[in-house]
């Protein structure tokens, strides 16, 4: 029994190797490139302002991706409820002088209430 628990915990080695190839290496490459090539850049330079704007926009894209192509259990929530929850959360965020907490709670409540109402 104990051995079975340990192997459940570890999973299979193939999947762990996939984590390294598809997860760890692609992330560390960009970090180390930033460390290597970023040395000569000035904080206020145009290049850095541009690169920061692109980084922010890519993160925004990831947010949109989770809502547009939802993973796992989130796919059980209809699209109008996903977007509606985000919009309601954003309204609460703005109304509370940018409280992240208020935005997250409001978005979650709207999603849960909508799901309950739809049955």
């Amino acid at each position: 029994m104990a051995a079975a628990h340990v192997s459940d915990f570890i999973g299979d080695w193939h999947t762990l190797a996939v984590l390294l190839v598809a997860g760890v290496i692609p992330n560390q490459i960009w970090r180390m490139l930033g460390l290597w090539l970023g040395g000569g850049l000035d904080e206020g330079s145009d290049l850095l302002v541009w690169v920061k704007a692109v980084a922010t926009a890519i993160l925004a894209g990831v947010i949109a991706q989770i809502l547009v192509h939802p993973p796992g259990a989130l796919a059980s929530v209809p699209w109008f409820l996903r977007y509606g929850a985000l919009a309601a959360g954003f309204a609460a965020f703005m109304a509370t002088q940018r409280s992240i907490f208020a935005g997250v709670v409001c978005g979650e409540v709207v999603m849960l209430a909508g799901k309950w109402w739809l049955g």
Partner: protein
Amino acid sequence: MTLPPLDSQQWNGAIRAFGWGLRATSATILSMVLFVTFIGIGALAHDTHFSMLWAILSTVLVWAGPAQIILVTTLGSGQTIVQSAIAVTMSAIRLFPMVVAVMPLLRTPATKRRQLVLVAHFTAVTLWVECYRFLPHVPRERRIAFVHGLGTGLITIGLVATIIGYLLAANLSQTFGAAVLLLTPLAFLFSTARNSRELADVLALALGLVFYPVAALLNSGVDILVSGVAAGTIAFGVHKWRQRT
């Protein structure tokens, strides 16, 4: 929490600075956001049949929420390792400018590149944002030790949350599972919006949200990169144009 003044004795020694960095993680709403996000990631890893060790290693070694979510969802939906690696690589591009932006805050003329390797590993959206907030209040020669403490604290929070989320997922209904997964986009959106003070950042965020669904119609496989570069470049262009007039 307030950090001691720049000339305080409290900054003597790297270990004390590390301790201040560690303690700084308790002072921030972003630690809560991080906690909530990684509960979602742990739950997602469980639901897509990855092992607990896999989830733990992904948090400690990848240490980038969006990349971990993309990795889990692509592999979980049966895409090939190559497709998954490309999608993760694209999402990870945003780490490059973050590292580039953080380094000048830490460097002194005597700093060697290898001293910054661990800082580069810790760099992700939370650390990036917190560096801008905390580092002006940290003496420059103590900043690397401070960020080592900050990064260690943040990864520990993420790790604990991953384990909790993984264990929770086994016991959640589909509705609550969806609620846990919705935490991630909400937390990312509001924490980024909160830290977007410059017009260029606000525009990049708003345009990035709007452009992705359009870019996704192209179905190019690099949709996030296309929408990100387009939105970021337009935001930068508007920023330059406003500066000129």
